[in-house]
């Protein structure tokens, strides 16, 4: 078996400074292998987003270890974490999180501003990625001029621009109807087939069934982890 991309060992997460602190994750052990497609399900408030934010290096664990590509994340500085988010991870959010005053093209460009590559050298790449999500003709439009499905495709293009090995999606179809959900999920399937590791939160069992493995979170612990 390949070395896991993600390895959580006895991870706890508390919220709040003073007692009683809110104990959200209560000892999570989870490995995600390279190229694996994992879905996380669970009731609302069970800690799914909290878990994904930890995986995305947006938040720190309160206890336990998180190894990303074999390296302990807790030892990294703020700048190093930013670099990991920029280069190694692609985020897809339920509410798209596009920057409203920027065009589609510029939104896709944003991660490049924070990376090492020059803007001029990557113009072509931006067009390519936008084309791969089928929005070539909308490059100069603002997010407010797009439908929800189109916005999510822009967000996916943005997540892909630095070609990350790991995609993290928090209910990517939560704001979409069945038709557009299907388009977005197909896109995610393709990205998985290209060899990326995918961790996706959903509360739709049918969506979860598309993944290779389901992790069910209940009240801060994994109660069921099995093949979908």
């Amino acid at each position: 078996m390949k070395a896991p991309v993600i390895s959580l060992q006895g991870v706890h997460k508390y919220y709040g400074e003073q007692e009683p602190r809110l104990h959200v994750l209560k000892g999570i052990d989870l490995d995600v292998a390279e190229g694996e497609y994992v879905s996380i399900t669970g009731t609302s408030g069970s800690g799914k987003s909290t878990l994904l934010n930890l995986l995305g290096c947006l938040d720190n664990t309160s206890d336990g270890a998180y190894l990303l590509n074999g390296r302990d994340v807790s030892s990294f500085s703020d700048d190093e974490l930013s670099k990991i988010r920029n280069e190694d991870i692609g985020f897809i959010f339920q509410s798209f999180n596009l920057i409203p005053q920027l065009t589609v093209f510029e939104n896709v460009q944003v991660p490049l501003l924070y990376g090492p590559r020059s803007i001029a050298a990557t113009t072509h790449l931006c067009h390519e990625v936008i084309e791969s999500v089928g929005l070539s003709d909308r490059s100069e439009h603002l997010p407010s001029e797009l439908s929800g499905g189109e916005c999510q495709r822009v967000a996916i293009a943005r997540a892909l621009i630095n070609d990350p090995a790991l995609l993290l999606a928090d209910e990517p179809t939560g704001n979409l109807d069945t038709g557009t959900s299907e388009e977005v999920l197909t896109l995610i399937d393709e990205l998985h087939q290209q060899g990326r590791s995918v961790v996706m939160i959903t509360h739709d069992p049918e969506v979860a069934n598309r993944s290779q493995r389901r992790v069910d979170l209940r009240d801060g612990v994994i109660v069921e982890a099995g093949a979908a």
Partner: protein
Amino acid sequence: MIPQKHLEMVRMGLRSLVGYPMRTVLTMLGVVFGVGSVIAMLALGAGAERELLQEIGRLGIQNIIINSIKPEEPKDAAQRSNWISSYGITFKDHRQIVDTIPGIERALPVHVSKKTVWHGSRRVEATLYAVTPEHLDMFDLNTSFGRNLTHLDDVKLSRVCVIRSGMLKELGIYQDPIGFPLNIDNETFYVVGVLAEDSFLGYARKALSVDAKSSEIYVPYSSILMRHGTRSITRRSGSTEATDVELNQVVISVTDLDQVLVTARMLGTLLERNHPNKDYELVVPLEVLSQRQKTQQVFNIALVAIASISLLVGGIGIANIMLATVTERTKEIGVRRALGARRHHIIAQFLTETITISTIGGAIGVLVGVGLVQVLTFFTGWSAAITLSSVILSLSISMAVGIISGIYPARRAAGLDPIAALRHE
């Protein structure tokens, strides 16, 4: 980082400024007016200083001018008609000055009298200046027509004169004025030169006791002195007033600029001794200049300080709006952090916006300032000079205002916890 990436950030930063044009304009206003008033204040200050230099510089900073002043009349003067009042600088003073005070290059005598000048049936009330030829050179009184007075005129006691061009019209002379006869006290003087129309400005005029209308006629000193002596008689209704002033004015030039003040002090002591009744005045242009410059400097500093307060208010305005913007764009900051922006990127982004606002505001402010100066000078006649250094100064100040007012909001934005920012609605 690559500069082009900066440009791209600036471009995207501009997008958010353009996205809310009204807010951006309102944010800019403080800086616009701040810079505008700094520019205007500095221009007015520089204008005043330039005028001052012109005015006093014209007198020659190496010169010292002594004027005779009519002392206050004794109370019973009214009863004593037909009295010859004699006062002022005497030939004896002049001799003493030349003989005893070192470092004097020359001490030119001037005799001034009010005269009625006739040309045919036209007449002008003029001031007759009996001067030595050097006098005209010393005060840059150049002729635009004809020639200046010469030593030969003085030696030959010629009846020639140099007049202000303004008088030509009043005398009804429209042709070439050279050689025209003017009747002064029943004597005929011939015009040999016309002065370029470059009158003395306020202060210089007063110091040289030149009349306000600039109806001056310059004649050779000896011609007047030898013919008429120093007495002048004015007839008023019923009574005759006679005055005897030997020297109305002495213009002294000092060899060494460093010695001007010392020489002035010595002159003061000498005259004080000879004239306890204070019937003279000592004008030292150099002293006046440095005094006035000092006053002007204080004034300039005060002006700029006042203008800076509006710049400060402008800066506070920017900081205030930016803080609101940071709150409003917390979500965007979270998104950017999730996409890999480091703290310094967020700081750079917000600073870029404030610097852009304040610099564009500053540039507009320069234009507003220039316009303000035009309007002010048009309506008040003040003189103003917009200097390049004042433009550079106020642009740099506005840039600094952008940085200073941006620092706190930017740091606050960068200090936000990424996940908290992202969850912000």
